[in-house]
């Protein structure tokens, strides 16, 4: 993928981080910590606000993030390893965002239906699969008008199973980057703009173009296996 969210690697190893991690005594660490907080508070507040619905909740989250970053002699910050072309601020955003999620889980519990073991219920998976089939064949069919497997006769059920297998095989042969693109568009139903930003496409039009080409390839792959439409 190409593009540029933030191409300037000017903060690969920021001085304030070096000072903090190299502090020789508690006093020096306190001073360095204040400097670090002063430098990165806008970033950390930005992340805290993005996960909270009120100012109070945002400040609680922010406080939790600071505590976690400082605990055990800044254990989390010490885990940072600079990479060519990567920015410390992006890494800190990732760490802070994950800490914010931890905080909300501790305070409010894990949202129902989004556990890691079962991220989607079977109905949503079924609907996604049907939606994908419809999208892949680019036919103007309402997904809800496609009959559920339970309601089909044995022959149609068999045909639906074949469709799914053919689709799964075709998807397995797609490059990971393209599978990711398909997943974001058709499973997560992300907008082209969101996809462009996350996958570093220059514009959303590049997303559409790539999707169009991919669907064409998948359609051809399905047709070569005797699948010529979404209907079972």
């Amino acid at each position, binding site marked *: *993928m*190409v*593009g*540029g*969210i*933030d*191409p300037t*690697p000017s903060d690969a190893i920021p001085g304030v981080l070096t000072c903090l991690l190299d502090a020789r005594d508690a006093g020096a660490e306190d001073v360095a910590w*204040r400097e670090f*907080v*002063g*430098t990165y*508070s*806008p*970033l950390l*507040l*930005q*992340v805290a*606000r*993005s996960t909270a619905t009120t*100012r109070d909740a945002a400040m609680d989250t922010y406080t939790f993030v600071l505590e976690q970053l400082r605990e055990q002699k800044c254990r*989390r910050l010490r*885990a*940072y*390893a600079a*990479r*060519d*072309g*990567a*920015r410390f*601020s*992006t*890494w800190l*955003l*990732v*760490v802070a*965002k*994950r800490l914010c*999620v*931890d905080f909300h889980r501790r305070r409010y519990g894990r949202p129902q239906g*989004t556990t*890691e073991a079962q*991220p*989607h219920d079977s109905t949503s998976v079924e609907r996604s699969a049907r939606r994908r089939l419809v999208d892949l064949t680019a036919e103007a069919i309402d997904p809800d008008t496609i009959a559920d497997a339970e309601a089909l006769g044995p022959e149609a059920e068999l045909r639906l199973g074949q469709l799914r297998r053919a689709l799964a095989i075709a998807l397995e042969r797609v*490059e*990971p*980057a393209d*599978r*990711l693109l*398909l*997943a*974001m568009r058709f*499973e*997560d139903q*992300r907008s082209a703009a*969101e996809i462009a*930003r*996350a996958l*570093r496409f220059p514009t959303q039009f590049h997303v559409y173009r790539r999707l169009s080409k991919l669907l064409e390839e998948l359609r051809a792959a399905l047709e070569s296996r005797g699948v010529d439409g979404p209907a079972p």
Partner: protein
Amino acid sequence: MSETDDPHLKDDVLAAYLDGALSATERRIAEDHLAGCALCRDELVDISKLVADRARVRRWPRLAGSFAAVAAAAIAFAVVGPWRAARGPSTAPGDRMRESTFVDGASRRAVAVVSPAEGDIVTPRTLRFAWRSVAPNATYLLKLADDTSSVRWKIDTADTTVALPDSVQLERGRSYNWWVDALTGDGHAASTGVRRFRTAP
């Protein structure tokens, strides 16, 4: 999420992916995981938005001070405004709009006033406060105080125009001070400074 036994993308891998700093092999592995992991995809989208927002913020004057500066911005909503109102507008309106220092020296943006103009004589029934937006996601706190510094009305809003409600009765021929403090989603604060108008006799 960042422990070693975690099956999801590690902090540095996700960050480097967002920065386009992974090797081809690493990127392929990351994308393979992302294609099959809805949780990591959600994170990717959320954090890419934060990164993009942050890139936009960098074009603005930075709030380079400590957390105290940000906290002080919030405190200023409740404390500094009335205090300044108590002092009364002692400098020219232009000076107030040029105010640029904020707590410990970090830059502070001004909120430009549209109406009422400084020193205007207004009719309460038609009084409408209006100012320029400082950011798409900014929220504003407008306070109106009389000449004894008693706050007569305040409102929290995301709009940039507010009409005085009928429930707020202003006396004729009296001076009033008002100000708007803005807080953007990225922690920047801004203010109109204290403005003054007078009601028609």
